[in-house]
């Protein structure tokens, strides 16, 4: 079942067109990878899906993004409510200057959950889901900035999970991490995809091959090809895709 679908999505930064007529539909409870050389618009596209681009001055968007049957740019849509359901994990881990507990409780508290018992429950569940609980259970009240880079990134995933989103957007979540932490995050993404829809931007083609069900190849603001990951990497229909996945440019 389709959960997010874009229709003729165009995006401009000032006079520079960054996305051109993007038509993609993402399946529920699956992992979709967005690949392509840097500057191809894959991150811009990802950030459009929960309207993070609203925060960038000078951005103009045309076309539609249909989430759960509703256009996310319609004036009826509350952008904060949208981000509640479409969570995001960033390239660099960005825990707040608070305790581990408060970091994870930030989202639920934002949406009005005050009960201590309930918050404890949510925090524990999010940490368990992000397979971080055992590592931090004795220091929940300590600052999150004391964690290692990989732990911080998993904390950010836990923070995003704590509001129980339907979709999780990941913007090159492992590009700042070492191979072991990367493997943990990939494992985590795969274990989450039976409950969440994950859309991941990655520079690392091996990563897309390892975890994604479907892959879209972006080039100069356009989607060149979108298919199952297997086909994209073994038998692409466009020669540019082939050139990219075989490492001839990028």
């Amino acid at each position: 079942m389709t959960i997010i679908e874009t229709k003729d999505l165009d995006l401009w930064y000032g006079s520079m067109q960054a996305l051109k007529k993007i038509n993609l539909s993402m399946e529920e409870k699956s992992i979709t990878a967005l690949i392509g050389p840097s500057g191809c618009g894959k991150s811009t596209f990802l950030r459009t899906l929960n309207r993070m681009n609203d925060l960038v001055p000078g951005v103009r968007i045309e076309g539609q993004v249909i989430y759960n049957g509703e256009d996310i740019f319609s004036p009826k849509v509350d952008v904060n409510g949208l981000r509640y359901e479409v969570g995001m994990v960033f390239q660099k881990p960005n825990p707040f200057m608070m305790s581990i507990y408060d970091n994870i409780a930030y989202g639920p508290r934002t949406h009005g959950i005050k009960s201590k018992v309930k918050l404890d429950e949510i925090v524990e569940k999010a940490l368990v889901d992000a397979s971080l609980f055992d590592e931090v259970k004795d220091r929940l009240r300590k600052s999150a900035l004391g964690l290692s880079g990989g732990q911080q990134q998993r904390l950010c995933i836990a923070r995003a999970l704590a509001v129980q989103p339907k979709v999780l957007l990941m913007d090159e979540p492992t590009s700042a991490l070492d191979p072991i932490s990367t493997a943990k995050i990939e494992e985590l993404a795969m274990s989450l995809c039976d409950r969440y829809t994950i859309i991941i931007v990655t520079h690392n083609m091996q990563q897309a091959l390892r975890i994604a069900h479907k892959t879209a190849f972006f080039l100069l603001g356009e989607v060149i090809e979108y298919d199952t990951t297997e086909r994209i990497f073994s038998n692409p229909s466009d020669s540019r895709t082939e050139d990219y996945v075989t490492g001839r440019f990028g």
Partner: protein
Amino acid sequence: MNLREFIDQKGYRHNPRRLMEDIIHMVFLILGLVAVGSVLVITVYLVISGLPAIFRIGPVEFLFGTRWASTAAEPEFGILPFILTSIYGTAGAIIIGVPIGFFAAVYLAKMAPKKVRDAMELCIGVLAGIPSVVYGLVGMTILVPGIRILFGVPDGATLLAAIIVLAVMILPSVINVSLTSLQAVPREYEEASLALGATDIETYFRVTVPAAKSGIFTAIVLGIGRAIGEAMAIMMVAGNVANMPSIFKSVRFLTTAVASEMSYSSGLQREALFSIALVLFLFIMIINAILNVLKTGGERR
């Protein structure tokens, strides 16, 4: 557009939270505009209360009259002595203070070990933080008697004493601003000069200083602003007599003219004091304008 359409367009009906956010945005905008409002109020009040007396006295007599006798039976309101005193006093302070501050800044920026620089940072901070009345007090008890004895004048409370106090008071800002601009000069400039066989001192003065000259010029203008606006310290050491300025005479500045008569003034005399403040304000605005030009010029470069 009626209210209902407006509410629909903004989407408030579906998202009351958006209305809340927009209200908060407005509150912050208003807080931001307090500074703008203050500048307007200050300007308007000074103009309204300062202009009438200038026209009653006559702009020429007011600005170029050499005699100030506000409480005489036939009062005269010429503020040329104050204007000239302020200019001479400021110029004197700049002539003494800027070289000292400049050389100290060059030392701190280029030659000082880190420990000395840290210690001097505290020193300069303290010098800048000492209340002006304390400078006045020290001036009163040391400079004034000192000048009387040293130069054999009947009263040591003179323009000279004021100049020395002002020179000390502008030191911190001259040093700090020059220091910042000297430190901003890229190291490559200096290396190029050193590689050509110049000594380090030659490099500092022939390459670094010219490269930082707009910052050093800013420091001087800032010093002028500080000196011309200072009131209490020089009120305590300059003797406060409305003489035409001369180095060993008691004098009155634009600032001290306002401060010394305000508490007992009335009528035209009081209005004339506001006019003096307006003249002072004009001086300051000109200095601000120059500073702004310097700043935007520096940014463009």
